[in-house]
């Protein structure tokens, strides 16, 4: 029975969630690009401060300065968390091996010890992030359910992956651990384009879009006035 589920998780479910993740993100980007193009076309003032946008974007993509400015502990933990989160799944030797076997794709892997170190830091920083969210009243109050869920959900594949590469310490059998690992990974892939994790692809455009947001269409105010039937009415 376990083998059946394993096959299912590795095959159809993986392909479904991976395709949904990639295509879903592509869809979001294309919709955003379309919206941005439309907004730019409509904007009354088409001059944008591109250099400022570019600088701010780079600044947030590689937030080296950011840790010093405010909430330094939270920032550093979150940077560590992101590093592990991005590097380990993509550059783990075993994952690359799967891609090589399946699609003939191959790219350099990180050393095993680094991968293990990053896995542990990611798990720890996820726990810290969760605690920080619960601890700080500001973030606790503005958080929705998914904000609490995400760090915990992300721990699962990392922890189970760690146990898969160290079966001797695993509380469950190898296959069961692998099943948990694959299913949780699939679930995360599935959720990426549907939740806030889509920021992984949208963040680079955010500054540009925010700036574009201030560039209203020429006749927007007048059109809204007409639509709401307030044309010519006293204020």
């Amino acid at each position, binding site marked *: 029975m376990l083998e059946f589920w394993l096959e299912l998780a590795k095959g159809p479910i993986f392909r479904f969630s991976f395709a949904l993740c990639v295509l879903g993100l592509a869809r979001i980007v294309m919709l955003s690009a379309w919206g941005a193009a439309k*907004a730019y076309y409509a904007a009354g*003032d088409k001059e944008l401060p591109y250099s400022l946008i570019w600088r701010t974007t780079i600044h947030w993509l590689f937030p080296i300065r950011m840790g010093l400015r405010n*909430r330094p502990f*939270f920032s550093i933990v979150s940077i560590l968390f992101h590093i592990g989160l991005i590097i380990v799944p993509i550059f783990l030797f075993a994952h690359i091996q799967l891609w090589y076997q399946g699609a003939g794709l191959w790219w350099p892997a990180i050393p095993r010890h680094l991968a293990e170190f990053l896995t542990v830091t990611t798990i720890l920083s996820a726990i810290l992030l969760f605690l920080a969210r619960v601890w700080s009243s*500001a973030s606790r*109050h503005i958080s929705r359910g998914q*904000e609490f869920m995400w760090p915990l959900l992300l721990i699962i594949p990392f922890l189970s992956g760690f146990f898969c590469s160290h079966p001797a310490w695993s509380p469950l059998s190898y296959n069961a651990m692998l099943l948990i690992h694959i299913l949780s990974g699939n679930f995360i892939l599935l959720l990426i384009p549907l939740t806030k994790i889509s920021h992984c692809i949208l963040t680079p455009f*955010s500054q540009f879009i925010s700036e574009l*947001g201030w560039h209203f269409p020429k006749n927007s105010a007048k059109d809204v006035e007409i639509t709401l039937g307030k044309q010519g009415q006293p204020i």
Partner: protein
Amino acid sequence: MIPLLDQDAILRAKANTKKPETMEEQGLRVRYHVENPLKGGRAQRFLEAFAAILKHSSYGLILEQYVRTSLKCARCAVSCMLYEATGDPKDVPCYRSAFLIETYRRHFTLAGSLKAKLFGDPGLTDETIEEMADSFYNCTACRKCVLECPAGIDHGLLTHLGRYILSEIGITPRALVVSVREQVQGKTRNTSAIPIPAMIDSCEFLEEEIEEAKGAKVKFPIDQEGAEHLFFAPVSDYMMEADTLCGIAAVLHQIGASWTIGTKNFDGINYGLFYSDIIMDRVLNEIPKEVKRLKTKKVLIGECGHASRTAKVFLKTFCEEGESPPVVSIIELTHAALKAGKLKLDPNVVTDRVVYHDPCNMARKGWIIDQPREILRAFCKDYVEMTPNGRENYCCGGGGGTVSIDELRPYRTSIAGKKKAEQLQETGAKLVVAPCANCKKQLREVVDDNGLDCEIVGLHDLIFRAIILQENDSPEKTPESTIPNE
């Protein structure tokens, strides 16, 4: 969370409030005195107004983006002076933005429709709208939080949009509406309802003042056709900030600029920025009319943050193609003149410690930051900076139009202005330079209510004190290069 507030400051502020009868007494959380508060069916009308705005503007783009990327990391909280003053989670910028973001998600996205079908989400309620109104008008729209958001969410833009939608269903503070009503529909055509003759009288009076003080004949040109600059000051300057106007006139006289004040429209204030694009559109469209009438080339904006920003940024947006005149701020003009060596400032006049306060609307995007500092350093003996400053400066606490609402004074001075008061106290400055009518009014009240010992002045007030005027031979000689280009 208990707001850590200075009780004395609150009491002082309450004592200074002009019209206590319009304010509902509920601690410091102010219920706005709302223009035309329609009851019932608000949610539906809110959504319809929202939809109408989405249909005809680009707000849908940013909302789509923010719905997907809002991370709720609470980094914005630590940058917001309101949250720092109160510690109330409702003052976290992200909490405020969530009102609009969640409404958008619920009523304008596929995810929302799915969620509603699965969990039976009832949607927007009247209570939420009341909370929303409360929240959006607590914000001063200073946009400091924007700098701290890793996801690039512009909470200031969302506040702007939120107030816009609310205004369309009739929820707007009365003070703003009354002013705008006078400006757009009234006889006097300005927010302070100053009659034109009174304005001309005060200009003549100021001419005499300048002659008295500096011994030079400085004109306030009224309705002069064909001048280079058409001058728009925040209209309150004519009543409260005479020194600023004197300084501006003196500088313009000294550099020999040709300028004029139009009698049909001389008010630079545009409260539309704070609550409605429709109003902003209407007020802005008056400017090119006056420019056309007087055949001037450029628009010169006096010492005012939001007036500068609306004119500079939104004139091109809302005016017809080719009809938007170039906009210059008086600070840019003065700075260029100083650089060109045309101004003579006596460095021995201002000896007290001086600190410069950045108006958010000018500094946030990095437009006017260094120019005033260079001017001040040129003649002030003891010039200091507060931290943070420049782009990351804290708001005075009266931004977003709240300063014109007198019943808000306790809130403004003891919560919104608390951080500013602390900053000022730290510097130990005697003179606080704030080149913005809003900031000046707010800071004066902050100083009063918090018992600080400083004087609030405009940039040109100080310049007026230090400037050495000479009789100009031929004002027309002024080369073009002294005036900063766009």
